[in-house]
């Protein structure tokens, strides 16, 4: 089983892909990799979601939003939260990464590059505004635990970098 790909019934895909991440509204919860499974069963739809970070305060809202979106389309549903396998930034889809960049958040680098960037050893995080890599780490924790704060030394814009979690 390839864990990167969730098992979502075709009929449900568009509905779930329209539910946005409460903290990064340009991204859907499917693009974020938070939805792990969605199946139509005898007792309605069963959706399995996993948190990005343990303390992610958005999980309750995501559960409510899923139930509401499915109800609007005539499905009763139950939403189950699982911790294993643990979420990784690899599960953010390529559309999701593009949406992040467009929104002004730098998408996660590979684990090794991420470590170098966060230790301030190499300037490799690309500014989502001007695409320069002449950027520096301001803080290892940005607006939420999943992001770090960087600043571009060329256009001077501060921006969030989505940290690699693997």
């Amino acid at each position, binding site marked *: 089983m390839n864990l990167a790909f969730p098992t979502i019934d075709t009929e449900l895909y568009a509905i779930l892909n329209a539910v946005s991440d409460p903290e990064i509204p340009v991204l859907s919860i499917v693009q974020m990799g938070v939805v792990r499974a969605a199946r139509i069963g005898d007792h309605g739809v069963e959706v399995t979601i996993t948190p990005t970070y343990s303390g992610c*305060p958005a999980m309750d809202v995501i559960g409510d939003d899923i139930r509401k979106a499915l109800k609007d389309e005539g499905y009763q549903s139950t939403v189950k939260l699982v911790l294993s396998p*643990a979420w990784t930034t690899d599960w953010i889809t390529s559309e999701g990464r593009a949406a992040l960049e467009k929104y002004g958040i730098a998408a996660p680098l590979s684990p090794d590059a991420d470590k170098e960037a966060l*230790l301030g050893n190499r300037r490799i995080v690309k500014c989502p505004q001007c695409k320069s890599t002449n950027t520096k780490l301001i803080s*290892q*924790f940005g607006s939420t635990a999943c992001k770090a704060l960087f600043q571009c030394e060329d256009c001077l814009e501060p921006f969030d970098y989505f940290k690699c*979690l693997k």
Partner: protein
Amino acid sequence: MSNHLVQYICGIADNSLILGQRLGELCGHGPSLETDIALTNISLDLFGQVRSYFQYAAELQGDQSSEDTFAFLRKEREYRNVLLVEQPNTDFAYIIGRQFLFDVYHQLFLEKLQSSSDQTLAAIAKKSLKEVTYHVRFSSDWVIRLGDGTEESHNRMSAAIEDLWIFTEELFSCTELEKEMSNSALGVDVSLLREAYLNRVHAVLNEATIAIPDVKYFQKGGKQGIHSEHMGYILTEMQYMQRTFPNMTW
């Protein structure tokens, strides 16, 4: 057996709960915006982990217990966190020192707990470890930055490590419960973590130009529920809402 497992899980969770509460006190009071946000984000990670532990403990207990009754309705002697995490936010060097001395332990502990024969505990550990890896990096960086910084920051960082060192040995003293849990492959034998801990801590302290404390006397008791004078104040604030308005929810 199940009752012992519940107690064991609560002990693990209590460390993160009380440290998370200490860090939460700093919300809006950090020395700079970035550190304020970082410390409260770490607090949030810890609370998230605590919720997973307590939800599981409540499920095992199978009575009217919930994550809230574990977090808010126990008495001081029933909390089993180590003394280190309840120490006050004296100054930024203390906050960083306490964080660093706990983070290094926490990472080593979770690395082992990942192999617990209990699948839920293993899953929580695996998830938490990813987050704690960032915590260690943050606190280690600051120990180095302050230790190898100005004369003032060096002195304060050294004083914090010197003062907090007496609480480190408790991390590795196995209680009867911890022995039982590690013997049955559910838990971690913390006494085996000491060597790796000292190696990692010494490496950072060396880089920070901070002398490794030469301490012969260590203070313990938290794991037995015997806490320092600070604990009552933490619980008073933390439990206030649930005690005043029982069963309240947000």
